[in-house]
Protein backbone atom coordinates (compact mmCIF):
# COMPACT_ATOMS: atom_id res chain seq x y z
CA UNK A 1 0.00 0.00 0.00
CA UNK A 2 1.65 3.20 -1.23
CA UNK A 3 1.38 6.21 1.04
CA UNK A 4 -0.74 8.96 -0.47
CA UNK A 5 -1.08 12.68 0.01
CA UNK A 6 -2.33 15.83 -1.57
CA UNK A 7 -4.72 18.67 -1.06
CA UNK A 8 -8.31 18.74 0.14
CA UNK A 9 -10.62 21.70 0.45
CA UNK A 10 -11.98 22.23 3.95
CA UNK A 11 -14.04 25.28 5.00
CA UNK A 12 -12.98 26.99 1.80
CA UNK A 13 -9.21 26.52 2.02
CA UNK A 14 -6.75 24.02 0.63
CA UNK A 15 -5.19 21.81 3.26
CA UNK A 16 -2.26 19.47 2.71
CA UNK A 17 -2.58 15.95 4.07
CA UNK A 18 -0.70 12.65 4.03
CA UNK A 19 -2.11 9.18 4.53
CA UNK A 20 -0.24 5.98 5.33
CA UNK A 21 -1.48 2.40 5.31
CA UNK A 22 -4.91 0.80 5.37
CA UNK A 23 -7.52 0.86 8.14
CA UNK A 24 -7.48 -2.87 8.89
CA UNK A 25 -8.12 -2.13 12.55
CA UNK A 26 -8.90 1.57 12.49
CA UNK A 27 -7.82 5.05 11.46
CA UNK A 28 -5.72 7.50 13.43
CA UNK A 29 -6.18 11.18 12.61
CA UNK A 30 -3.35 13.29 14.00
CA UNK A 31 -3.29 16.97 14.95
CA UNK A 32 0.04 18.76 15.17
CA UNK A 33 0.91 21.42 17.69
CA UNK A 34 1.88 25.07 17.67
CA UNK A 35 -0.39 26.50 16.54
CA UNK A 36 2.14 26.80 13.71
CA UNK A 37 3.93 23.46 13.48
CA UNK A 38 3.38 21.08 10.57
CA UNK A 39 2.52 17.43 10.06
CA UNK A 40 6.21 16.52 9.73
CA UNK A 41 6.54 16.77 13.50
CA UNK A 42 4.32 13.69 13.91
CA UNK A 43 5.57 11.48 11.08
CA UNK A 44 6.69 8.63 13.39
CA UNK A 45 2.98 7.88 13.91
CA UNK A 46 3.22 6.14 10.52
CA UNK A 47 5.02 3.35 12.39
CA UNK A 48 1.49 2.30 13.46
CA UNK A 49 0.77 1.17 9.89
CA UNK A 50 2.58 -2.14 10.44
CA UNK A 51 0.06 -2.89 13.21
CA UNK A 52 -3.00 -2.43 11.04
CA UNK A 53 -3.81 1.25 11.44
CA UNK A 54 -4.25 3.87 8.79
CA UNK A 55 -2.54 7.10 9.83
CA UNK A 56 -3.70 10.44 8.45
CA UNK A 57 -1.87 13.70 9.13
CA UNK A 58 -2.58 17.20 7.85
CA UNK A 59 -1.16 20.70 8.01
CA UNK A 60 -3.60 22.96 9.84
CA UNK A 61 -4.65 26.17 8.11
CA UNK A 62 -1.75 28.62 7.90
CA UNK A 63 0.78 25.85 8.55
CA UNK A 64 3.18 23.79 6.46
CA UNK A 65 1.98 23.35 2.91
CA UNK A 66 -1.62 24.36 3.60
CA UNK A 67 -3.12 27.64 2.47
CA UNK A 68 -2.20 30.71 4.53
CA UNK A 69 -4.93 33.33 4.55
CA UNK A 70 -3.70 36.47 6.31
CA UNK A 71 -6.90 37.57 8.01
CA UNK A 72 -6.92 36.51 11.67
CA UNK A 73 -10.61 35.56 11.47
CA UNK A 74 -9.49 32.18 10.11
CA UNK A 75 -7.37 31.43 13.15
CA UNK A 76 -9.92 30.91 15.88
CA UNK A 77 -10.25 27.85 18.08
CA UNK A 78 -13.85 27.11 17.07
CA UNK A 79 -12.85 27.19 13.40
CA UNK A 80 -9.92 24.86 14.08
CA UNK A 81 -12.34 22.41 15.72
CA UNK A 82 -14.63 22.46 12.68
CA UNK A 83 -11.59 22.06 10.43
CA UNK A 84 -10.72 18.75 12.13
CA UNK A 85 -14.26 17.50 11.62
CA UNK A 86 -14.13 18.76 8.02
CA UNK A 87 -10.93 16.84 7.26
CA UNK A 88 -12.48 13.69 8.69
CA UNK A 89 -15.57 14.07 6.53
CA UNK A 90 -13.87 15.07 3.29
CA UNK A 91 -11.48 12.13 3.50
CA UNK A 92 -14.37 9.84 4.60
CA UNK A 93 -12.36 8.48 7.49
CA UNK A 94 -15.33 7.25 9.49
CA UNK A 95 -14.94 7.24 13.26
CA UNK A 96 -11.31 7.92 14.09
CA UNK A 97 -8.86 7.60 16.89
CA UNK A 98 -7.97 11.26 17.36
CA UNK A 99 -4.36 11.97 18.27
CA UNK A 100 -3.35 15.48 19.31
CA UNK A 101 0.17 16.62 20.20
CA UNK A 102 0.79 19.69 22.40
CA UNK A 103 -1.60 22.40 21.13
CA UNK A 104 -3.06 19.62 18.96
CA UNK A 105 -3.92 17.85 22.23
CA UNK A 106 -5.81 20.92 23.42
CA UNK A 107 -7.57 20.98 20.06
CA UNK A 108 -8.40 17.26 20.27
CA UNK A 109 -10.08 17.82 23.63
CA UNK A 110 -12.29 20.52 22.10
CA UNK A 111 -13.14 18.21 19.18
CA UNK A 112 -14.06 15.45 21.63
CA UNK A 113 -16.47 17.85 23.35
CA UNK A 114 -18.10 19.08 20.15
CA UNK A 115 -18.00 15.97 17.94
CA UNK A 116 -17.87 12.96 20.28
CA UNK A 117 -19.65 10.74 17.77
CA UNK A 118 -16.86 11.22 15.25
CA UNK A 119 -14.33 9.60 17.54
CA UNK A 120 -13.50 6.14 18.78
CA UNK A 121 -10.83 7.25 21.19
CA UNK A 122 -8.61 10.13 22.16
CA UNK A 123 -4.85 10.39 22.59
CA UNK A 124 -3.68 13.60 24.23
CA UNK A 125 0.10 13.74 23.87
CA UNK A 126 1.76 16.54 25.89
CA UNK A 127 -1.53 18.45 25.80
CA UNK A 128 -3.33 20.74 28.20
CA UNK A 129 -6.81 22.01 29.06
CA UNK A 130 -6.05 25.50 30.39
CA UNK A 131 -3.95 27.94 28.39
CA UNK A 132 -3.27 30.39 31.24
CA UNK A 133 -1.89 27.57 33.36
CA UNK A 134 0.33 26.45 30.51
CA UNK A 135 1.68 29.97 30.02
CA UNK A 136 2.32 30.36 33.72
CA UNK A 137 4.25 27.09 33.85
CA UNK A 138 6.17 27.99 30.70
CA UNK A 139 7.21 31.28 32.27
CA UNK A 140 8.26 29.47 35.43
CA UNK A 141 10.48 27.06 33.48
CA UNK A 142 12.07 29.98 31.67
CA UNK A 143 12.69 31.80 34.93
CA UNK A 144 14.47 28.71 36.24
CA UNK A 145 17.02 28.72 33.43
CA UNK A 146 20.61 29.66 34.37
CA UNK A 147 21.04 33.39 34.78
CA UNK A 148 23.55 33.71 31.93
CA UNK A 149 21.06 32.20 29.50
CA UNK A 150 18.22 34.40 30.69
CA UNK A 151 20.36 37.54 30.48
CA UNK A 152 21.40 36.75 26.93
CA UNK A 153 17.80 36.17 25.88
CA UNK A 154 16.65 39.40 27.54
CA UNK A 155 19.50 41.42 26.06
CA UNK A 156 18.76 40.51 22.45
CA UNK A 157 15.01 40.67 22.97
CA UNK A 158 15.39 44.24 24.23
CA UNK A 159 17.47 45.09 21.15
CA UNK A 160 14.98 43.31 18.90
CA UNK A 161 17.94 41.36 17.47
CA UNK A 162 16.16 38.01 17.34
CA UNK A 163 18.35 36.62 14.57
CA UNK A 164 21.59 37.04 16.46
CA UNK A 165 23.34 33.66 16.73
CA UNK A 166 23.97 34.25 20.43
CA UNK A 167 20.26 34.78 21.04
CA UNK A 168 19.39 31.68 19.01
CA UNK A 169 21.96 29.61 20.88
CA UNK A 170 20.56 30.73 24.24
CA UNK A 171 17.02 29.87 23.18
CA UNK A 172 18.19 26.49 21.95
CA UNK A 173 19.42 25.60 25.44
CA UNK A 174 15.80 25.78 26.59
CA UNK A 175 14.62 23.85 23.53
CA UNK A 176 17.08 21.01 24.12
CA UNK A 177 15.94 20.80 27.73
CA UNK A 178 12.15 21.00 27.45
CA UNK A 179 11.20 20.43 23.79
CA UNK A 180 13.49 17.74 22.36
CA UNK A 181 16.39 16.31 24.31
CA UNK A 182 18.06 14.50 21.41
CA UNK A 183 21.54 15.81 20.64
CA UNK A 184 20.80 15.42 16.95
CA UNK A 185 17.29 16.41 15.94
CA UNK A 186 15.66 14.12 13.40
CA UNK A 187 15.44 15.95 10.08
CA UNK A 188 11.65 16.22 10.06
CA UNK A 189 11.54 17.65 13.57
CA UNK A 190 14.39 20.06 12.86
CA UNK A 191 12.73 21.17 9.64
CA UNK A 192 9.46 21.79 11.46
CA UNK A 193 11.20 23.97 14.07
CA UNK A 194 13.05 25.96 11.40
CA UNK A 195 9.77 26.60 9.58
CA UNK A 196 7.67 27.42 12.60
CA UNK A 197 5.24 30.26 11.98
CA UNK A 198 3.33 31.47 15.02
CA UNK A 199 -0.36 31.07 14.16
CA UNK A 200 -1.78 31.49 17.64
CA UNK A 201 -3.42 34.88 16.99
CA UNK A 202 -4.92 34.93 20.46
CA UNK A 203 -7.10 31.90 19.82
CA UNK A 204 -6.36 30.48 23.26
CA UNK A 205 -6.81 33.69 25.25
CA UNK A 206 -8.71 32.69 28.37
CA UNK A 207 -9.26 29.19 27.00
CA UNK A 208 -9.99 26.77 29.85
CA UNK A 209 -12.08 23.64 29.45
CA UNK A 210 -11.00 21.91 32.65
CA UNK A 211 -14.53 21.94 34.06
CA UNK A 212 -15.98 20.37 30.94
CA UNK A 213 -13.56 17.43 30.79
CA UNK A 214 -15.94 15.08 32.71
CA UNK A 215 -18.29 15.31 29.70
CA UNK A 216 -15.77 13.34 27.66
CA UNK A 217 -16.82 9.71 27.72
CA UNK A 218 -14.27 8.33 25.26
CA UNK A 219 -11.42 5.94 25.97
CA UNK A 220 -8.52 8.31 26.53
CA UNK A 221 -4.74 7.99 26.67
CA UNK A 222 -2.77 10.91 28.07
CA UNK A 223 0.99 11.06 27.70
CA UNK A 224 3.78 13.44 28.62
CA UNK A 225 7.54 13.47 28.96
CA UNK A 226 9.42 13.45 32.23
CA UNK A 227 10.91 16.87 31.33
CA UNK A 228 7.99 18.13 29.28
CA UNK A 229 7.49 21.86 28.68
CA UNK A 230 3.85 20.99 29.30
CA UNK A 231 4.38 20.25 32.97
CA UNK A 232 2.60 17.77 35.26
CA UNK A 233 0.62 20.72 36.62
CA UNK A 234 -0.89 21.15 33.16
CA UNK A 235 -1.36 17.47 32.35
CA UNK A 236 -2.70 16.09 35.64
CA UNK A 237 -6.00 18.01 35.47
CA UNK A 238 -6.67 16.42 32.06
CA UNK A 239 -6.11 12.98 33.57
CA UNK A 240 -8.29 13.79 36.59
CA UNK A 241 -11.02 15.30 34.45
CA UNK A 242 -11.49 12.45 31.99
CA UNK A 243 -12.87 9.45 33.77
CA UNK A 244 -11.03 6.20 33.11
CA UNK A 245 -8.23 7.95 31.24
CA UNK A 246 -4.78 6.43 31.30
CA UNK A 247 -1.68 8.54 31.99
CA UNK A 248 1.76 7.48 30.73
CA UNK A 249 4.94 9.44 31.47
CA UNK A 250 7.86 8.83 29.12
CA UNK A 251 11.05 8.47 31.09
CA UNK A 252 13.95 10.72 29.98
CA UNK A 253 11.80 12.44 27.36
CA UNK A 254 10.57 16.01 27.11
CA UNK A 255 8.02 17.37 24.62
CA UNK A 256 8.91 15.14 21.64
CA UNK A 257 8.67 11.60 23.04
CA UNK A 258 7.58 10.35 19.64
CA UNK A 259 11.11 11.16 18.45
CA UNK A 260 13.01 10.93 21.74
CA UNK A 261 11.78 7.40 22.51
CA UNK A 262 10.05 6.46 19.29
CA UNK A 263 9.80 2.72 19.91
CA UNK A 264 8.32 2.98 23.39
CA UNK A 265 5.98 5.80 22.45
CA UNK A 266 4.58 3.89 19.47
CA UNK A 267 4.23 0.76 21.62
CA UNK A 268 2.21 2.64 24.22
CA UNK A 269 -0.07 4.16 21.59
CA UNK A 270 -0.44 0.83 19.74
CA UNK A 271 -1.32 -1.03 22.92
CA UNK A 272 -3.90 1.58 23.82
CA UNK A 273 -5.47 1.51 20.34
CA UNK A 274 -5.47 -2.30 20.28
CA UNK A 275 -7.26 -2.28 23.65
CA UNK A 276 -9.95 0.04 22.31
CA UNK A 277 -10.36 -2.05 19.16
CA UNK A 278 -10.53 -5.33 21.10
CA UNK A 279 -13.24 -3.99 23.39
CA UNK A 280 -15.16 -2.75 20.37
CA UNK A 281 -15.03 -6.23 18.85
CA UNK A 282 -16.27 -7.81 22.09
CA UNK A 283 -19.19 -5.38 22.29
Amino acid sequence: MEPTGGYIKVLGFKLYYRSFGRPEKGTVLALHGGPGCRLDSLLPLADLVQFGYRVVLYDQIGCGKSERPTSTEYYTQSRAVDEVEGVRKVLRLGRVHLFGGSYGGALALDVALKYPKSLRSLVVYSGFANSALFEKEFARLQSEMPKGIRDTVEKYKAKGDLKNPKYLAAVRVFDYRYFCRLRVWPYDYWYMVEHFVDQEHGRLNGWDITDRLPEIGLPCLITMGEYDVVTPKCVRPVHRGIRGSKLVVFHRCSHAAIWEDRVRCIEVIRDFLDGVENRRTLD
Partner: protein
Amino acid sequence: MIAEPSSGFVSVQGHRICYRSFGTPDKGTVLALAGGPFGTHGQILSIADLVQFGYRVVMYDYLGCGRSDRPKAARHYTQVRAVDEAEGVRRALRLGKVHLLGISYGGALALDVALEYPKSILSLIVSSGFPSNAIHTEEWNPNTPRWVREAITRYADKGDFRNPRYVAARKALYRINVCRLRIWPYDLWESLARGASDSFFDTLPDRLEGWDITERLSEIRLPCLIIAGRYDLESPKSARAIHRGVRGSKLVMFANCSHTAFWEDRERFIEVVRDFLDTISPSPRKRP
Protein backbone atom coordinates in the same frame (compact mmCIF):
# COMPACT_ATOMS: atom_id res chain seq x y z
CA MET B 1 16.32 30.56 5.01
CA ILE B 2 16.23 26.81 5.08
CA ALA B 3 16.20 25.09 1.72
CA GLU B 4 13.03 23.21 0.93
CA PRO B 5 13.66 19.55 0.25
CA SER B 6 13.32 18.87 -3.44
CA SER B 7 12.78 15.81 -5.52
CA GLY B 8 12.39 14.87 -9.13
CA PHE B 9 13.92 12.86 -11.92
CA VAL B 10 17.24 13.06 -13.68
CA SER B 11 18.12 11.33 -16.88
CA VAL B 12 21.05 8.98 -16.39
CA GLN B 13 22.24 6.60 -19.09
CA GLY B 14 18.98 7.12 -20.92
CA HIS B 15 16.71 6.28 -17.99
CA ARG B 16 14.80 8.33 -15.47
CA ILE B 17 16.22 8.15 -12.00
CA CYS B 18 14.17 9.45 -9.06
CA TYR B 19 16.15 11.52 -6.55
CA ARG B 20 15.58 13.52 -3.39
CA SER B 21 17.67 16.33 -2.05
CA PHE B 22 17.66 17.85 1.44
CA GLY B 23 19.35 21.03 2.63
CA THR B 24 22.05 23.27 1.21
CA PRO B 25 25.75 22.40 0.79
CA ASP B 26 27.14 24.95 3.26
CA LYS B 27 29.92 22.52 4.19
CA GLY B 28 29.55 19.89 1.50
CA THR B 29 27.29 17.37 -0.19
CA VAL B 30 26.65 13.80 0.89
CA LEU B 31 25.51 11.41 -1.81
CA ALA B 32 23.92 8.44 -0.06
CA LEU B 33 23.52 4.96 -1.56
CA ALA B 34 20.88 2.62 -0.14
CA GLY B 35 21.17 -1.09 0.43
CA GLY B 36 19.89 -3.66 -1.95
CA PRO B 37 20.87 -3.84 -4.75
CA PHE B 38 17.14 -3.21 -4.84
CA GLY B 39 16.40 -1.02 -1.83
CA THR B 40 14.59 2.29 -2.17
CA HIS B 41 15.99 5.49 -0.74
CA GLY B 42 13.31 5.42 1.97
CA GLN B 43 15.32 2.93 4.00
CA ILE B 44 18.08 5.50 4.57
CA LEU B 45 16.02 8.68 5.07
CA SER B 46 17.53 9.29 8.52
CA ILE B 47 20.78 10.32 6.82
CA ALA B 48 18.98 13.64 6.12
CA ASP B 49 19.61 14.50 9.78
CA LEU B 50 23.03 15.72 8.56
CA VAL B 51 21.32 18.76 7.02
CA GLN B 52 21.22 20.60 10.35
CA PHE B 53 25.03 20.50 10.44
CA GLY B 54 25.45 22.18 7.08
CA TYR B 55 25.47 19.28 4.63
CA ARG B 56 23.29 18.76 1.61
CA VAL B 57 22.08 15.15 1.47
CA VAL B 58 21.09 13.57 -1.85
CA MET B 59 19.56 10.11 -2.31
CA TYR B 60 18.18 8.29 -5.31
CA ASP B 61 16.36 5.11 -6.21
CA TYR B 62 18.52 2.67 -8.17
CA LEU B 63 17.40 1.72 -11.65
CA GLY B 64 14.52 -0.74 -11.31
CA CYS B 65 13.59 0.46 -7.81
CA GLY B 66 11.05 2.83 -6.32
CA ARG B 67 10.00 5.46 -8.82
CA SER B 68 13.01 5.11 -11.10
CA ASP B 69 12.59 3.53 -14.52
CA ARG B 70 12.46 -0.23 -14.78
CA PRO B 71 13.78 -1.48 -18.11
CA LYS B 72 13.20 -5.20 -18.46
CA ALA B 73 16.50 -6.33 -19.98
CA ALA B 74 18.90 -7.89 -17.50
CA ARG B 75 21.89 -6.13 -19.09
CA HIS B 76 20.85 -2.93 -17.31
CA TYR B 77 21.35 -4.48 -13.92
CA THR B 78 25.08 -5.00 -13.69
CA GLN B 79 27.55 -3.70 -11.14
CA VAL B 80 29.46 -1.76 -13.80
CA ARG B 81 26.29 0.02 -14.77
CA ALA B 82 25.39 0.78 -11.14
CA VAL B 83 28.82 2.40 -10.68
CA ASP B 84 28.28 4.60 -13.73
CA GLU B 85 24.79 5.41 -12.50
CA ALA B 86 26.14 6.85 -9.24
CA GLU B 87 28.60 8.99 -11.19
CA GLY B 88 25.81 9.92 -13.63
CA VAL B 89 23.53 11.13 -10.83
CA ARG B 90 26.37 13.20 -9.37
CA ARG B 91 26.99 14.85 -12.73
CA ALA B 92 23.37 15.34 -13.73
CA LEU B 93 22.63 17.07 -10.43
CA ARG B 94 25.92 19.01 -10.62
CA LEU B 95 26.83 18.02 -7.09
CA GLY B 96 30.56 18.65 -7.48
CA LYS B 97 32.86 16.51 -5.39
CA VAL B 98 30.81 14.57 -2.88
CA HIS B 99 31.13 12.67 0.34
CA LEU B 100 29.95 9.26 -0.78
CA LEU B 101 28.05 7.28 1.86
CA GLY B 102 26.91 3.72 1.22
CA ILE B 103 24.87 1.37 3.37
CA SER B 104 25.16 -2.42 3.00
CA TYR B 105 25.18 -3.14 -0.76
CA GLY B 106 25.46 0.63 -1.16
CA GLY B 107 28.73 0.38 0.76
CA ALA B 108 30.08 -2.21 -1.67
CA LEU B 109 28.95 0.03 -4.52
CA ALA B 110 30.60 3.07 -2.94
CA LEU B 111 33.92 1.20 -2.83
CA ASP B 112 33.61 0.41 -6.53
CA VAL B 113 32.75 4.04 -7.33
CA ALA B 114 35.78 5.17 -5.33
CA LEU B 115 37.99 2.91 -7.47
CA GLU B 116 36.44 4.01 -10.76
CA TYR B 117 35.85 7.71 -10.10
CA PRO B 118 38.19 8.77 -7.28
CA LYS B 119 38.24 12.39 -8.50
CA SER B 120 34.49 12.71 -7.94
CA ILE B 121 34.78 11.97 -4.27
CA LEU B 122 35.95 13.89 -1.21
CA SER B 123 35.51 11.09 1.28
CA LEU B 124 34.00 7.67 1.67
CA ILE B 125 31.69 6.29 4.35
CA VAL B 126 30.93 2.59 4.24
CA SER B 127 28.35 1.36 6.73
CA SER B 128 27.69 -2.40 6.95
CA GLY B 129 29.35 -2.80 3.57
CA PHE B 130 31.56 -5.52 2.15
CA PRO B 131 34.53 -5.85 -0.24
CA SER B 132 33.89 -9.35 -1.54
CA ASN B 133 30.82 -11.33 -2.43
CA ALA B 134 32.35 -14.47 -0.95
CA ILE B 135 32.52 -12.95 2.56
CA HIS B 136 29.14 -11.35 2.06
CA THR B 137 27.32 -14.55 1.18
CA GLU B 138 29.27 -17.18 3.07
CA GLU B 139 30.30 -15.65 6.38
CA TRP B 140 27.87 -15.27 9.26
CA ASN B 141 28.07 -12.85 12.11
CA PRO B 142 29.09 -14.95 15.13
CA ASN B 143 26.18 -13.31 16.97
CA THR B 144 23.64 -14.94 14.70
CA PRO B 145 22.10 -17.83 16.67
CA ARG B 146 23.08 -21.25 15.42
CA TRP B 147 19.52 -22.41 14.85
CA VAL B 148 18.93 -19.44 12.57
CA ARG B 149 22.04 -20.14 10.51
CA GLU B 150 21.26 -23.83 10.24
CA ALA B 151 17.62 -23.40 9.31
CA ILE B 152 18.37 -20.77 6.70
CA THR B 153 21.23 -22.75 5.17
CA ARG B 154 19.26 -26.00 5.12
CA TYR B 155 16.05 -24.70 3.55
CA ALA B 156 17.78 -22.25 1.22
CA ASP B 157 19.91 -25.10 -0.17
CA LYS B 158 16.72 -27.04 -0.84
CA GLY B 159 15.02 -23.97 -2.27
CA ASP B 160 12.21 -24.50 0.27
CA PHE B 161 11.65 -20.81 1.01
CA ARG B 162 8.07 -21.35 2.17
CA ASN B 163 8.93 -23.81 4.89
CA PRO B 164 7.63 -22.41 8.21
CA ARG B 165 11.00 -23.06 9.82
CA TYR B 166 12.77 -21.08 7.14
CA VAL B 167 10.24 -18.27 7.51
CA ALA B 168 10.66 -18.25 11.29
CA ALA B 169 14.45 -18.24 11.02
CA ARG B 170 14.40 -15.41 8.56
CA LYS B 171 12.11 -13.39 10.78
CA ALA B 172 14.48 -13.95 13.70
CA LEU B 173 17.42 -12.96 11.51
CA TYR B 174 15.73 -9.66 10.69
CA ARG B 175 15.07 -8.96 14.37
CA ILE B 176 18.55 -9.93 15.53
CA ASN B 177 20.84 -8.96 12.67
CA VAL B 178 19.04 -6.42 10.47
CA CYS B 179 17.23 -4.02 12.79
CA ARG B 180 17.09 -4.63 16.53
CA LEU B 181 14.45 -2.00 17.26
CA ARG B 182 11.27 -3.57 18.65
CA ILE B 183 9.31 -1.44 16.23
CA TRP B 184 10.83 -0.63 12.86
CA PRO B 185 10.55 2.94 11.63
CA TYR B 186 7.90 3.18 8.93
CA ASP B 187 10.31 4.11 6.13
CA LEU B 188 12.60 1.15 6.78
CA TRP B 189 9.68 -1.24 7.20
CA GLU B 190 8.00 -0.01 4.05
CA SER B 191 11.17 -0.14 1.96
CA LEU B 192 12.11 -3.67 3.01
CA ALA B 193 8.56 -5.02 2.82
CA ARG B 194 8.08 -3.67 -0.67
CA GLY B 195 11.46 -4.86 -1.95
CA ALA B 196 10.87 -8.36 -0.61
CA SER B 197 7.50 -8.65 -2.31
CA ASP B 198 8.80 -7.65 -5.74
CA SER B 199 9.35 -10.79 -7.79
CA PHE B 200 10.88 -8.83 -10.69
CA PHE B 201 14.20 -8.77 -8.85
CA ASP B 202 14.27 -12.56 -8.59
CA THR B 203 14.45 -12.82 -12.36
CA LEU B 204 17.74 -10.93 -12.56
CA PRO B 205 21.14 -12.59 -12.44
CA ASP B 206 23.32 -11.92 -9.38
CA ARG B 207 25.36 -8.86 -10.30
CA LEU B 208 27.92 -9.64 -7.61
CA GLU B 209 28.74 -13.18 -8.75
CA GLY B 210 32.48 -13.52 -8.20
CA TRP B 211 32.80 -9.85 -7.21
CA ASP B 212 35.87 -9.25 -5.05
CA ILE B 213 37.81 -6.00 -4.79
CA THR B 214 39.73 -6.81 -1.61
CA GLU B 215 43.06 -6.69 -3.41
CA ARG B 216 42.29 -3.31 -4.95
CA LEU B 217 41.29 -1.53 -1.73
CA SER B 218 44.81 -0.17 -1.28
CA GLU B 219 44.28 1.92 -4.41
CA ILE B 220 41.69 3.96 -2.54
CA ARG B 221 43.40 7.08 -1.23
CA LEU B 222 40.39 8.88 0.21
CA PRO B 223 39.54 9.67 3.81
CA CYS B 224 37.41 6.69 4.76
CA LEU B 225 35.07 5.91 7.64
CA ILE B 226 33.89 2.33 8.10
CA ILE B 227 30.91 1.57 10.33
CA ALA B 228 29.61 -1.80 11.45
CA GLY B 229 27.25 -3.13 14.10
CA ARG B 230 28.23 -5.78 16.59
CA TYR B 231 25.19 -7.82 15.53
CA ASP B 232 25.50 -6.86 11.87
CA LEU B 233 24.04 -9.21 9.28
CA GLU B 234 27.28 -8.49 7.47
CA SER B 235 30.13 -10.44 9.02
CA PRO B 236 32.65 -8.29 10.95
CA LYS B 237 35.22 -9.85 8.63
CA SER B 238 33.94 -7.53 5.92
CA ALA B 239 34.47 -4.36 7.95
CA ARG B 240 37.92 -5.53 9.01
CA ALA B 241 38.91 -6.38 5.44
CA ILE B 242 37.92 -2.90 4.25
CA HIS B 243 39.68 -1.34 7.22
CA ARG B 244 42.88 -3.26 6.49
CA GLY B 245 42.71 -2.48 2.80
CA VAL B 246 41.99 1.27 2.82
CA ARG B 247 44.99 3.00 4.29
CA GLY B 248 44.26 5.46 7.10
CA SER B 249 40.62 4.40 7.30
CA LYS B 250 38.76 4.70 10.56
CA LEU B 251 36.60 1.86 11.89
CA VAL B 252 33.73 2.50 14.30
CA MET B 253 31.83 -0.44 15.77
CA PHE B 254 28.34 0.18 17.17
CA ALA B 255 27.94 -2.03 20.22
CA ASN B 256 24.14 -2.34 20.31
CA CYS B 257 23.40 -2.23 16.63
CA SER B 258 23.11 -4.64 13.76
CA HIS B 259 22.71 -3.76 10.08
CA THR B 260 20.88 -0.42 10.42
CA ALA B 261 22.81 1.65 12.96
CA PHE B 262 21.44 4.78 11.27
CA TRP B 263 18.02 3.85 12.67
CA GLU B 264 18.99 1.74 15.68
CA ASP B 265 21.26 4.42 17.13
CA ARG B 266 20.35 7.28 14.86
CA GLU B 267 21.65 10.06 17.07
CA ARG B 268 25.12 8.57 17.54
CA PHE B 269 25.41 7.38 13.95
CA ILE B 270 24.80 10.91 12.71
CA GLU B 271 27.25 12.32 15.26
CA VAL B 272 29.98 9.90 14.18
CA VAL B 273 29.43 10.69 10.50
CA ARG B 274 29.19 14.43 11.16
CA ASP B 275 32.41 14.46 13.17
CA PHE B 276 34.18 12.56 10.40
CA LEU B 277 32.88 14.92 7.71
CA ASP B 278 33.76 17.99 9.76
CA THR B 279 37.43 16.93 9.87
CA ILE B 280 37.64 16.91 6.07
CA SER B 281 38.06 20.38 4.74
CA PRO B 282 37.07 20.66 1.12
CA SER B 283 39.81 21.98 -1.10
CA PRO B 284 39.72 25.76 -0.61
CA ARG B 285 37.94 27.74 -3.26
CA LYS B 286 40.14 29.76 -5.54
CA ARG B 287 39.87 33.42 -4.69
CA PRO B 288 40.03 36.00 -7.45
